[in-house]
Every structure is written in C-alpha cells, then in structure tokens.
C-alpha cells in the first residue's frame, strides 16, 4: 500500500464535501473489503490521495420498513441483512443474495453500499501492478477493452460496449428484481435512481462528490415467490458466472406479475423484460419457463469464450420461474 491521508467523516455532509475537496482523488471506505484489494494491488494508474472512512457516520446502518417498503442504510453489513427478520420475511431474495457473497468474515465487514459500489472483477482491469505493471484498457482511460480479443470467459454477454466487465454485485441483482432504488447524497442534496440505472459500462452512476446513503425497496406482496440463484465454479467465496433473481406473483398457477433480473451478464443487473411479458397472465409450466428463458437471453451477444453463460443464464431463468410455481 502507498501513502494516503485517512480522514474519518462524522456526517454524510462532511464525507461529501471531502469528496468534493479532493476532486476525485479521494475514495470512501465503508467495509473496505474491495477497496483494500485496490489499494494493495495498485492496479489503477491513479492512487487515491485520501481515504475517507465513513464507518464513523452514525445511523447509516439501519434496516427499517414502513408501508412503502424496506429501507436499508448504506452501511448496513451484509451479515446484518442476511439475519434481519424484516429482510428475510419480506425480501427473501435480497437476504439470500447477501448470503451468497464471499465469506462470513467478509459479510461481517462488507456493507450493502459497498457491495453495490464495488469495482468490477475483470482480470485485465485488475491485473496486479507487481507482476509487470497494470494493464491498460478503456476503463482505465486508454486503449481497447482487452477482454474482447482476450480471455473473456467471465465477461458480458449483454450490453458490454466499451467495457465488457460485468457487475459483480449479488445484492444489485436481487434489488433489480424488486424494483429497488438507490438513494444518493451530495453536498447539494439528495436524489434517487433505480438500481438498474445505477450501472454503466465504464462505472457506476455516482458523480463526483456523491455517495450512496441507502437503498429502498417497494413493498412486495407477501404471496410473491422470491428466488435468487447464483451459479459459480466454486460454492463458497466466488463471484457469480451468472445469477438470477426473480419475484413472481401468481394466482392459481397463473403468473400475475413476474419480475426477473439477470446478474453477472452485463455491466449492471438486467431486467429480463421480454421474459416478464411472456409470463404475464399465463399459467406457469415448464414450457412457459423455457420460453421465458429464451426471451430473457434473446438479446445476448456472447464474446468468443462466453457463449456458455447464455446457456447457464437460460437454465437459471427457467429454474427461477419454476420455483415460483
């Protein structure tokens, strides 16, 4: 690790004004589980001048519910989310997604804000400085995306453009299926954006001086079946090759409302809208699930080595729909 200033922020306002003061040369430290890898791996060309500790901000880790839905503070630990009766009972797919993240130790340190804001896992982007120096790519400001002509087995199959790294967040996928929103603060006020709008190929939707303060999830009908499926090479401690979250409300076997989000296939979680339309108003059968799966991946354009992800994604969609039965 190199030298940097370390500042503990007491309030959101203070954290945001520090971000502004450092003009993009400061980073926030919530759980630090992803940040430390970046600081130690030194894989970026820029190194932060300051690390702003936001663990010192009070009240940003609450989990609460009102008639509109669930609200989780950005500093809520992933482990707290997995244990929270509110989340488990009403928003089970989110609790399940949080439970699939990394290890118990990391879930005890990592926060939901950090899980949403973590950097991508692309191995070209993250190539360590100490083995010959960082690799240059478009995400870092110059050159092409190295994955396109390189080893792209884990990269995007939908909507890459410029950078084909996928969103590594598991909670984002569950939140996307739940129409979750992200609340963002800056020195000049607050704004709210849908989770699906938060991610773009070259980074997340935070502008300079902004930070995530909470996530909000509209209330889900208790009878809706929620599912989170994550396909990994290794059961624990692994990022998704593909994940699928679904919230399916059905009445006597007929799908009233189905919401399906795909993870690790694109720069952000992707709502499978065509599949959702396919399901709507129809009795859920294996044939319908298979058709929905085809629809969900209809726009997939795999790279040279990741066509298998399309098949896995279809399978997970199909299985998610059928568990809603």
């Amino acid at each position: 690790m190199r030298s940097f200033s370390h500042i503990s922020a007491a309030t959101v306002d203070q954290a945001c004004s520090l971000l502004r003061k450092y003009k993009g040369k400061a980073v926030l430290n919530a759980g630090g589980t992803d940040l430390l890898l970046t600081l130690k791996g030194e894989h970026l060309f820029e190194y932060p001048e300051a690390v702003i500790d936001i663990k010192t901000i009070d009240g940003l880790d609450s989990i609460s519910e009102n008639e509109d839905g669930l609200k989780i503070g950005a500093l809520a630990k992933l482990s707290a989310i997995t244990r929270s009766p509110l989340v488990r009972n009403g928003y089970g797919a989110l609790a399940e997604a949080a439970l699939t993240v990394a290890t118990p130790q990391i879930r005890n340190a990592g926060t939901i804000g950090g899980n949403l804001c973590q950097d991508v896992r692309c191995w070209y982007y993250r190539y360590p400085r100490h083995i010959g120096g960082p690799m240059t790519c478009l995400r870092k400001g110059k050159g092409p995306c190295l994955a396109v002509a390189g080893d792209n087995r884990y990269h995007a199959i939908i909507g890459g453009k410029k950078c084909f790294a996928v969103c590594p967040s598991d909670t984002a996928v569950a939140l996307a299926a739940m129409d979750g929103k992200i609340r963002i603060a800056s020195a000049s006020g607050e704004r709210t954006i849908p989770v699906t709008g938060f991610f773009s190929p070259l980074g997340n939707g935070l502008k300079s001086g902004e930070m995530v303060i909470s996530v909000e999830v509209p209330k889900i009908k208790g009878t809706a079946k929620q599912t989170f499926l994550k396909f990994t090479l290794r059961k624990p401690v692994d990022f998704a090759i593909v994940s699928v979250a679904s919230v399916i409300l059905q009445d006597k076997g007929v799908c009233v409302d189905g919401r399906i989000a795909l993870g690790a296939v694109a720069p952000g979680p992707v709502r499978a809208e065509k599949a959702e339309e396919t399901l709507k108003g129809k009795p859920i059968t294996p044939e319908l699930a298979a058709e929905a799966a085809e629809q969900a991946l209809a726009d997939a354009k795999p790279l040279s080595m990741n066509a298998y992800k399309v098949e896995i994604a279809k399978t997970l969609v199909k299985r998610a729909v059928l568990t809603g039965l």
Partner: protein
Amino acid sequence: MADEYRFIGKTIPRKDAAEIVTGSARFLNDIKMPGLLYGKVLRSPHPHALIRQIDKSKAANLKGVKGVLTWEDIPDWRGGTPRSTRVLDRKVRYVGDAVALVAAETEETAKEALRLIEVEYELLPAVLDMEEALKPGAPQLYDEFPGNVVKPGVPFFGPKSLKDVVMGDVEKGFQEADVITEGTFGYENIPNPLPPEPPGAIAQWEEPNKVTLWVSNQASYMDTVTLFHVTGRQVEVRSIGGPCGGSYGSKFMSWQVQSYATLLSRATGRPVKLIMTKEEHLANFTLRPSSRIKARVGMKRDGTVTAVAGTWMIDTGYYSMTTQSQVAVGAGEVQIMVRCPNWNLRNVIVCTNRNASGIVRGFGGQELKCCLIPLLSLAMEKAGVDPLEFLKKNYVKPGDGYFWRDGIWYEYRGVDYTKAMQSGAERFGWKEKWKGWLKPSSIDGVKRRGIGVGVHGNADIGEDSSEAYVRLHPDGTAMVFSCVTEHGTGQRTNFLKMVAEVLQLPVERVSITPSDSLVNPYEFGPAGSRGTYAIGSAVIAAAEDAKQKLFEILAPRLQADPKELDTSDGFVFVRSNPGKRLPWKAVGPDRTCTGFGRFSPDYTLSNCMMTFIEVEVDTETGKVTLVQVVNATDVGRIIDPPGLEGQLNGCLGSAGIDSAVFEETILDRRSGHIMNTNLIEYKWRTSLELPPIDNVVMETPIDSHRFNAVGVGEIATSPGPSAVLMAVSNAIGTWMHEYPVTPERVLKVLGKVKPRVRRGKGGEA
C-alpha cells in the same frame, strides 16, 4: 500384527502439533533479525524482450533503499538444466521475469522503489504454444536451445538418463492388436500446486564467499547443493530449514528467490528477507508442466496392450530446472502402469514465453497418464474392456520390470497390488455402478452420474540418497541428526517413532536436530514418496548402528557378547536374562555414542494408488460435482495412521483431482499474462465442498526396511484427474478430453453451446 510394535502404527501427537495449532511455530516470515532488509522484484511486462537500458538512480536515491540490482550488477549466476538461466538477464522471457531487485528498510519502501526504476525494452516476438515454438522461424528463447528444444537428459541421473521409452517392435505390436486408437490428448491447464505459504528466503551474506539461507523448502539440504552450483561453485551455502507451509514439490525450485536474497544481502551487507506475494506465487512460481501426446496404442480384446507409439510433448515454460527429470521419471512410471512389450514413445521438451513449469507432485507420471489414459480408454471402449480390469491386469507385478530414470532395467520385487485395487473397487461399488463405456451409472432428470478410475505408482519411493546420525546420550535420550524438513506430512515425528522403535525408547526421549546443513549429513529430502522407505532406512540404520556401538561398549561390563544384548527404556540387558542390565549412563557421563546410517537408491520397489471417482453432471449448466472419491493402496505397514489419512485426503488439491475439476492457471495466449493471480480467480476447493473420501489401505508386508513400509503421500493426487474425465465422459455419454471439465467444455461437448462471436475491435463493439 500391529501389537508387535510400541510406536509404529500407533497414533501419537506430532512433535510440532502444539506449536502449529497455537501459532508459536516459527515459519519463514516469522523470523526477524537485527538489521533485516526487505527485498522486492521488478518484473517484466513483456513476454519476450531485450533490456535496452535501465535507469535505477531514482530508486537508489529513495530514502530507505539500501540496494538496487540489475543484470549489469550481478555475477553470472545461472540455474536450470543445463544451467542456462541467469538470475537476472539482459533478456526477459515471460511476463513477470525478474528485471531488477531492490532491498529496503521496509517492504513498502522497496515497492515504492520499484515504481522508480525506468526500463527501456526492445520487444521481441513471443511464442506461447509448444507446437508453434517448434516451427522453423519461431522466436528463440535461448541460443543454447536451438528450436526451443530443451537439451534432454539429466546429468545427475547418469550417462544413460532415461529420455524416451523404446523397446520391442511396435510395428509387430500393432499387427498383433485387435484394436488400434490414436489421437492428440493434452493436460495443459498448468495448475499451480499452491502451498499455503508462499516461497521465500532470508539470506545473510558473509564476505568473501559465504551465505546462510533461512529457507522454506521440503528439501532444505538440497538448497545448499543447488545454490552452490548456481554460483558456479564459488559460494559456500549453509541452509537452515524450518517448518515449511507446504511445497508439493514446487519449493525445490527456490533457487531464484534464494539468489535474489543472497545477492541483495551481498550488495547491502545486511540480512535480506524476500518472500513472494500470493500474486507472485501464482504468476511467477512453479507450475505443473503442460503435457500433450500424439500417440497410437494397440490393444487386444483381453486388455493386453501390444504397442504404444508416439510423441510426448512437454511445455516447460521459459526454462527448465527439473522437467527432464520429470520426463525421465514419468517415462518410468508409465511402464509401471502399462505392461507392454513394444514401446516407441519419444519426448520433446519445449520452451515457451510463459512462467516456468517444474516440480509438482505426480512428477511427470501424472502429466503423461492424464494424456495417455484417455487414449487407452478409446481402445478399451473399442475392445469392450472394463477399465478396472484393464488397470488391474496391466499394473506392474513381481517379476515384471521397467527402465527407470537412469535408463537401467529394474525387476520389480514388490507386492502385487491387485488385492488393494479390488478392495477399493468393492468399497466404491464399481461392479454395481459400471454400466459400460459412455453409459451413466444413474440418471436423475437433467443430472447424470458417471464413474471413472485411474492408477498411479512410482519407484521413487527408493530414489536418491539419505544419511543420518543417531546419537545416544548417557541420560537415556537419543538425538536424530537429519536434514529432513517438516513440510506438513508429519514425517519428522515418524522418523522419531522409527528410532524409538529400534531403541525401544519412549518417543519423548528422542529428538531431532534443526534442518541445518551445517550440522546434518546429506539428505535429498522427502521428495516424491521417498520419506518412509529412503529416509526411514537411513534413520533406522543410524539407530541400529548406534545401538550396536552402545552394546560393544557395555558388553564387557555385562560379561556378554554384543550379539546377546538388547535395549529398552534406556537400559541395556542380556536378552536371555533381562535382569542382567545396565542403564545407558553406564557408558560414563562424558561419553555419547553415535551411529551413522545411509540409504542408497533402490528402484526395485514401487508404490501404488488407485482412485475411483463418481461425478454428477448437471447437463443444463455443465456443472460437474464430485460425489464420491475412493483411494485404494497398500503401504506394507502403516507408520502413522492420521498422517497417512491426511496424505490420502490430500488427493483433491495441490494440482491433483481438482486440476480436472476447476484448478487451472489461465494464460492469455495473446499477451502472455497469467490472468488468475489471486485466490478468488484461481479456483481451489474449500472445506465447504469436500466430497466424501474413503481410503482403503492394506498392509501386506513389503520388503523395504525392517518395518516393511513404503510411502504413498505424493501419489494421492495422481490417479484422479484422468478418472474425472472418464467419469464425466461416462455420465454424459460423450468423450470429454480436456482438463478441467469446466461448464463451458461440458456444454460444448453436449452440443449446447454454439459460439456466436461478436465482431468488432475491442471497445468499439
């Protein structure tokens, strides 16, 4: 039977157990000393380049930096076989090759200094595939290796050092065959054995030509030998081994990291610690050799192999230290597995611009079999032969023979392992589960199960030399002088058990010296599975020799012939009249009694491990899950029951069975970068995903040493990978021939993935 021994076969606590579990064991990185500096390595971003110039002035001037070395600053020290590879060279040959070394007061300062070294490279074309490397006009890595072919043979193995397997008449063999199959098969995923503790060294230079090295190696004595030769026999090397956090063979290749520390200590006059990071461990340290065969086999309907012919190509990466040895031993091991009178298996070792391959447990044989068994399987299918029956029939039997690594024919005089194989098959339920080639053993919806079997054995259990002293003290204690290092198997405690058994002394009264080359005699180290037989024999012989000398001293006082004496619990007594006895201290308080023991190589015994695998394949996702693993072996006699179980349960990791499931080093074949340099991207099994492992261990006395035991630890990893391919092939009904069996490969073989390649240049798509 077991009752005739006091210690052998009994479970006793390991001597180092409390230290390890309480964290007080001092591993290499725990060692601190006054004035210690920290070393770091600047590594090449290019797979192949010449260094035009290096400007180290800024780095050298950074506060806290005590030394910066480039290829221009160091003597012409070289490693490899033959010694071709300089510690630092003007040429870099892979992404991560060492360019400069820094020693500084702190690790952070050393890393900061690396950023300040300016290097100008002249890029050279690189070659990353072995067949490309062999083509005329391919980029050349070394002037010494024209055509990128590494000079075959191992001087240490003698003038006839085994290269190819050539005997009989293969044309005649093919004429006699009922079926002939041929093809190209590879085991090319270059897994990293990945010991938990990364490689490293601490060096303290002493002018004019001495160095003391604190090392982490399974064979610390050999570091003195290797480094001595690396320095052109100019430097006197003392090595001190401590607890080694795993090696699996790989840390035999520590000469570079040891040379870095030595040169930095020499340059700074201070001790230097240089320990690789996990990234360096994954990107710059020993990988399994990449192996590919283009071969043809002939087989009769009864499973008799009539001919094996073809070429075995081995990609050693940017240099070879031990690959020729692995080829020699692998060529020997294949004859142990397949009885065949007609061979023409040629090999070629190729250099390419990637990180080096070298010693990994399985040592050539695992690599060769992982290619050959799939080819043999094709023949077995055609001939309608059950693989279990095939392997039982063709494994070496007493009276058979093989050319071993020295090129000499040895007649095997060990036990027939058929019984152990059969017991394993019964435990596994082979008969019930085997439905024929390419047939699943069961189907449950989209999930299909299949089984496979593999076998491996190695005559290395008696290879190389070991020496030991045993010193008896008047207070009734004994000390073993052996340079054997503890690398996780518990063997140091096992040698104490052997000595305790010979001397009939409580184990607590037997101790062992630190693994210091200054104190102890020659020890090749616990390489392969040689610990139990080879090292054990030396230690036993030393204890017997010491005992004999003790008897000679005390015989006159007991008015008996030394032959009539025996010893127990620190007393020497007359065997026919145990009441007539003297304590050891009767030798006098100013006297010790030292015995010497030596083991010289014996290649007439081999161990054996058969592994049965059942997998479940999700045919919709391509995911392969291990359902059951059964290992079957015969060890002659168990020395240490839990230690043995640990070794057998180690069959999955360290580039073993999981090298067929998900362990692999991923090389970008365009740029030469290794992409998975962390423990998330490098897939390895955690304890949450352990399949049931069942071990069948038989104890048929083997004519090794007085305890009739042989080692098997090394080979636990070796039979499994090809058995996984076999099991997956049977589960899905289609041949699966690539390692590892990733979801992508399974789905492709099932015809479910038809790649649609997105066109367009990077970033513009």
